């Protein structure tokens, strides 16, 4: 068992929206951290972390060249920017929300 790390300490994140899909660019602060997030930030873990916020599937795509992950979350915006009742229907804060997640490094 490794030590627990919070993503906020090793990553930056930025979210965008398309329809009811939220995507988060998760950017590792260093190469070493990229190796960690690439193996530990899995679709299952992200889906489980967001609970009732993300209704659909989660996909995670690695970009080795940018030492980043693209995380795509379906049914994540309460119906999408135009239909959502949330204060931010585009889900920009979901990026920093993800940084609350802990992984074992």
């Amino acid at each position, binding site marked *: 068992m490794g030590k627990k790390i919070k993503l906020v300490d090793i990553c*930056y*994140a*930025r979210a*965008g*929206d*398309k*329809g*009811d*899909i939220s*995507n988060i*660019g998760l*950017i590792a602060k260093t190469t070493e951290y990229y190796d960690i997030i690439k193996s530990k930030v899995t679709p299952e873990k992200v889906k489980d*972390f*967001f*609970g*009732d*916020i993300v209704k659909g599937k989660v*996909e995670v*795509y690695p*970009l*080795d*060249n*940018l030492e*980043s992950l*693209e995380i*795509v979350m*379906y*049914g994540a915006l*309460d*119906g*999408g*920017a*135009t*239909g959502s*009742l*949330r*204060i*931010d229907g585009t889900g920009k*804060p979901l*990026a*920093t*929300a993800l940084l*609350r997640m802990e992984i074992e490094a």
Partner: protein
Amino acid sequence: MDVKKVSIGSGSLMWGDIIEPGLEMIEKADIDYICYDWLAEVTMSVLYIQKTKNKDAGYPPRFIEWMKKVLPLAKQKGVKIVTNAGGANVEGACSALKEALNANNISGVKIGSILGDDITSDINNFRKEGIKFTNIDTGEEDIDRIKDSIVGAYVYLGAEGIVECLEGGADIVIGGRLADNALYVGPWIHEFGWDHNNSQHIDKIGAAITCGHIIECSCCCTGGMMCSQWDKVPEPWNVGYPIAELYENGDAVITKTPDTGGIVNSWTVKEHLLYEVHDPKNYIMPDGIADFTTLKLEDAGHDVVKVSNMSGKKRPDKLKVGIGYTDGWKQELQHWFCWPDALKKAKHCEYILKEWLKRQKINVEKIEIDYMGFNMAHLSLVKIPDIDGAKDLPEVGIRICAKFKTKEEAEYFREHAMIWSAPQAGYVFNTTTAPAKPVPIIKLWPTLVPRDAIHIKTDIKEV
């Protein structure tokens, strides 16, 4: 021998952007084109509704005001303009622009227009021909459920119309739902003579798509919106807008207007490369499919980033369509409470609201209740503290947003807000803003249409 390069700047990322950085760029930077993106998913739906109410509306009038200032300067500097500010009414926008230019004695401007993105009235015929508008997000097979509440349907167009207009000598090209990305790819394809069907040009068009993606959100890649170095941006009140210099060999340089604030480095570019992308190997645009996993970013001087090894695949056979449809009304309310027992009072407000709702005939289809300062942004990931542990909070707000089938129900709800907001002594009565009015909910149905079913029409008129 020098490799030919064509420089394109970004003048705006949406309706709400500001005019000055684009003007400053045209004045100071060595650019060939400046592109103005004015549309978002939300914007298109709003514009379609405006057009339904008034056939002359459906484009942002503010854009016409901008062009009175931008066009004379751009013309003088030899900079061409490409925009999707025609919104839901390209013809209306073009005639308003002509009138404005005439009224201001601005002449010698060729206005190119692109029609064909609005397929609202074609949907039924397409369906009769057997085309299904499957929802690409949810998989729902066709639009039967929403067909009677459609406000507008538009295709995300690629570069062709832009190229045609530029070939015809247009100084400004105005389209409706041109894909943001196509605003940039169009001029590059035109200038370099690239062909969507020539295998030698596919990676280069991929490079154009990638560069367009990097700069299309204006200040977002120059320090105007950053997650990594937001506190280190020089002169954040004066952020320069981005410029992509694309070379004929498919390499590029990203920079910004000289002598401005803001910042361009591999972090700012990297951040924006990841923005609103799904599968990064397949960034699907009408002009091609860019692969963001092959490219290399390199800091190459002050506010200069080199981008190399960009690649792509052939453009898709289908184009994306956005269908906007009405789906009831939403009403938002915000109430604030102050010390002592601010949180307890906010909770009491929620309690009264829920009890009141149980006793009403209005039907709340959905309701979101957030505690401002706690869980409005991160939702259920944040636990609201126990009342006993939060006795001394100076103030707490509660935000309520409810969805109704009818506007009347939403208004009834709004009119009764004092029932749950006022009983708690310590309610902060907001004398500066009235409560928001009911807002129609326009939902988006993302779908596809075969490329060969869509026919565009371009036109050029000189003022």
